[in-house]
C-alpha cells in the first residue's frame, strides 16, 4: 500500500515536471519567435534597401541605369511600394512601412527614379548634369 502511494506520488511529480517544462518551452518559444520576427522585420529590409540604393548611386557614373525589383519573393511582405529621392537622401517605402530618415548619397550626377512600364521594378537613371 505504502509503496503504491509512493509510486503514485512520484508519477504525479514527474507529470507535473513534464507539464512545466512543456509550458516553459512554449512561453520561451513564443517570445523567441517574436524576437526573430522583429529582427527580420521590414525595418531591416528598409535599411538594407536604402543603403544599397545609396551606395549604388554613389558608385555610379553618368549614363548608368539600374533596376530594383519591387518584390524578390513575390510575397507582399517584401514589396517595395515606392523609392523616393529627396534632399539628397534615398527613401524606400517597404510593405506599408514609410521611411523616416532615409539614407544620404553624395553623387555629383543627376539621379532620377521611375517605375518600369510593367510596374514590377524601379528604374534608377544616373545622368550627367
Amino acid at each position: 500500500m505504502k509503496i503504491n502511494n509512493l509510486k503514485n506520488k512520484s508519477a504525479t511529480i514527474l507529470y507535473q515536471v513534464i507539464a512545466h517544462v512543456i509550458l516553459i518551452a512554449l512561453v520561451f518559444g513564443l517570445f523567441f519567435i517574436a524576437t526573430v520576427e522583429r529582427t527580420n522585420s521590414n525595418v531591416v529590409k528598409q535599411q538594407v534597401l536604402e543603403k544599397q540604393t545609396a551606395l549604388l548611386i554613389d558608385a555610379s557614373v553618368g549614363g548608368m541605369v539600374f533596376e530594383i525589383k519591387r518584390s524578390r519573393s513575390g510575397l507582399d511582405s517584401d514589396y517595395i511600394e515606392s523609392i523616393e529621392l529627396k534632399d539628397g537622401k534615398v527613401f524606400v517605402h517597404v510593405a506599408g512601412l514609410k521611411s523616416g530618415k532615409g539614407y544620404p548619397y553624395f553623387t555629383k550626377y543627376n539621379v532620377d527614379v521611375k517605375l518600369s512600364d510593367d510596374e514590377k521594378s524601379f528604374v534608377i537613371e544616373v545622368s550627367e548634369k
Partner: protein
Amino acid sequence: MICYKNQQNLFARPKLRFAQSRPIYVGFLKNKIGAMGDGLISVIRIILIAFIALIILGTSAIFYNYYIDVKNTEAFILNTKLVDCVAENGIVDVSKFSGSENDILGYCEINNVDRFLVRIKVFDEEKNEVLFLQQGSGLSWLIPDIVFNGKKEERKGLFENTKYASGYYRQDYGVRVNNNGEESKGYLAMEVLVKHEF
C-alpha cells in the same frame, strides 16, 4: 507541557469528532486543498517564468537595433571619386587647385559634404609636399589623428564597433605631378573619413 489530572489543557488541539468518525472524507478534503495549493503554485511559477521571459526577450527585441554599417564602403567610394577628380588621367595639376584648398569637395561637386572629412597630400619625386587639400578642418580631424592614428588597422577606442564609429579609408596613389609646368613622378596620399548619418 505538564498537565495535571483535573486541569484542562488549553493548548491541546481540539479533537475532531467528525473527522474521527469519517477519516476518509477529511483525507479527501486535505488532498483536494493540497492539490489546489500545488496548482496555484504551478500557475504562479509559470506566470513568473513568463514574466522573466517577457523581460529578457521583450527588452532585447525593443532595444535591439540592427544596424548595417556601410560607412567604410562610402569612404572607399568617395576616395576613388576624389582621385578621379584630383588626378584627372593620372596627372595632378597643382595650379588648378589654387583657391580650392579648403573646398575640395565643392570643387569635385560632391553633395552632402557635412559628413565627410577629406585630406589630400600630393608629393613630388623628392617627396616634397607640393599640394595640400583639406576639408572638414578643426576638431573633426582629431578622430582620424588620435583614434585611427592614420592607419586603418589601428581603429581602436572611441565608438569602435558602434553605429557612431566613423568610416575611414586611406590610400596612396602613384601619379604624375604638374607643378608650374614641370611634370614629374609623384604620389598622392588621400584620407577620407565618413561620419555617422544621425
